[in-house]
């Protein structure tokens, strides 16, 4: 039978061949939790009576959401994770290493893996051709203990992307556009599989941005076939040996096919307070910003920082606007320093924070004041997301963010990019 990427990967990890709608108990390759979900996972493992993890080398506890810790309760939670790792041999990715999803793709995930994580944006790893999905702490506790989980094999929506983006349009604009089309629950229980001629030339950074936000359409995962670009990326991470070709069969059964013309898309914005409340920047009107945030597992990678720096270099952030930049990982941070990107950003007025999640979750570093507006490159703009239910979050690309920081209002990057 012809199979989608999701059906192929899950079949390879189940006891028998499966297809959409089947329930399977599967072996998992990588299991992770972060400092918001990890302590509960640890207490669940103890409740189940386990005192070890099945695959210590690929069981990871990330300290990234409140890192460095802003208060003692969270410091104590971090201690719980470190002590658990000490006892079981599980890995800790500690303060300053970076956002879990970025570290996963840099160090742990290979094509054809099944990855489960106690974080909804675990779907990011789908860009490498891995079936990667978010779950709760108890599911992850079982994953740590047994290296297994149960899954319903999802039906797949195929998204074909053709054409070349115009000036000022990036992967973030594309995925915001797609979410606007599918809506925030249009892909619930389903996998999104991205393909088409535009994808064949797309960088890994772009693919990560797109897979990262699959969950904002409700999807279980956001998959790309693995190809030469994937292989080169893994080689650049010294993990070329784990490359395998993962691709859908010709004639696989898709529940729905969506065709997207990348060349027709304009810079896009998600308006408060849902990600699918989308607008092209042309239709937005003049929205003054108090804070601009460039970073997160969606858009804190080297190409994102480089793009922002190319706009900000030699310019200053507008008076009254705060620009916060958080590299997604230590590796990204170091490369951005080597290339002078951090210097350009800092000279323009940016505050650079340690690699991690930064202000995205509303725990520390850049919580908004009452009535304030932030333009962020993150993946979510729900009420209260950045720590204050009386504030407003708009989402856009790093280019839109950088130009908006200079102008002081949400501004069209086509004005500055040549």
């Amino acid at each position: 039978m012809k199979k989608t990427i999701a059906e192929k990967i899950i079949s390879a990890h189940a006891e028998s061949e499966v297809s959409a709608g089947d329930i399977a108990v599967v072996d998992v390759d990588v299991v992770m939790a972060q400092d918001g979900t990890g302590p509960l996972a640890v207490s669940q493992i103890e409740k189940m009576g386990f005192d070890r993890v099945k695959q210590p080398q690929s069981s990871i506890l990330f300290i990234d959401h409140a890192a460095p810790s802003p208060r003692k309760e969270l410091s104590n939670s971090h201690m719980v994770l470190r002590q658990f790792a000490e006892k079981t041999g599980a890995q800790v990715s500690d303060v300053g290493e970076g956002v879990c999803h970025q570290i996963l793709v840099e160090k742990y995930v290979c094509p054809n893996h099944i990855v489960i994580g106690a974080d909804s944006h675990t779907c990011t790893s789908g860009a490498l051709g891995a079936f990667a999905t978010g779950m709760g702490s108890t599911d992850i506790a079982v994953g740590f203990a047994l290296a297994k989980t149960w899954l319903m094999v999802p039906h797949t929506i195929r998204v074909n992307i053709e054409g070349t983006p115009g000036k000022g349009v990036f992967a973030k604009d594309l995925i915001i556009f797609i979410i606007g089309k599918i809506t925030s629950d249009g892909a619930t229980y389903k996998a999104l599989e991205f393909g088409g001629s535009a994808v064949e030339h797309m960088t890994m950074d772009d693919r990560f941005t797109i897979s990262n936000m699959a969950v904002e359409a409700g999807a279980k995962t956001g998959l790309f076939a693995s190809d030469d670009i994937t292989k080169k990326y893994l080689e650049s991470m010294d993990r070329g040996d784990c490359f395998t070709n993962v691709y859908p069969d010709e004639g696989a059964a898709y529940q729905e096919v969506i065709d997207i013309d990348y060349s027709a898309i304009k810079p896009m914005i998600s308006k408060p307070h849902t990600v699918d409340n989308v607008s092209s920047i042309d239709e937005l009107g003049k929205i003054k910003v108090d804070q601009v945030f460039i970073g997160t597992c969606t858009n804190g990678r080297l190409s994102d920082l480089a793009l922002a720096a190319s706009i900000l270099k030699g310019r200053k952030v507008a008076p009254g606007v705060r620009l916060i930049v958080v590299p997604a990982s230590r590796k990204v941070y170091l490369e951005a320093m080597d290339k002078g990107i951090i210097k350009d950003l800092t000279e323009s007025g940016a505050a650079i924070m340690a690699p991690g999640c930064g202000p995205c979750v509303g725990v520390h570093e850049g919580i908004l004041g009452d009535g304030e507006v932030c333009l962020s490159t993150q993946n979510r703009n729900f009420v209260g997301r950045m720590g204050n239910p009386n504030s407003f979050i708009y989402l856009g690309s790093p280019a839109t963010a950088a130009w908006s920081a200079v102008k002081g209002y949400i501004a069209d990057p086509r004005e500055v990019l040549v």
Partner: protein
Amino acid sequence: MKNQALEGKSFKFGDDISTDLIAPGRYFHLRSNLPELAKHVLEDADPQFAQKVRPGDFVVGGRNFGLGSSREHAPAIIKLAGIGAVLAKSFARIFFRNCINVGLPALICDTDQIEEGDNLKIDLSEGFIHNLDKGTQIKFNPLPPVMIKILSDGGLTEHIKKNKGFNL
């Protein structure tokens, strides 16, 4: 699934109730202290909710209830606040799965037929919600058999303990 009948008042919410509304990020530091976190349950959707709710009451949402984060703390504190079940037209995937894992019934039904404050009675095995004020019955979708098995074992932790692994 347990055969118990649930009875209580409905608290009505709209569409797209996110996990940020249920368990706000600004209380991140309380995630290892669920009883304290539960005092803030649904605070950003209804600031008075935790004070008003009584054990056995129901949370009634619209479409896509629980969208957003994987935080299991969201269904866990709804349960801890004494809520008997969450009713919605549809649920976000991770939230729905987390509800089953923590032993909180999540029922998919036409919630347009329920108003704020309606007294409801639900017999989980029967598949109907009785609206005692309106005298109507609303059918809810049966759970997938795998989830019924986990829920009837008392949640995922108990299922794994009992079976020394998965037995689905």
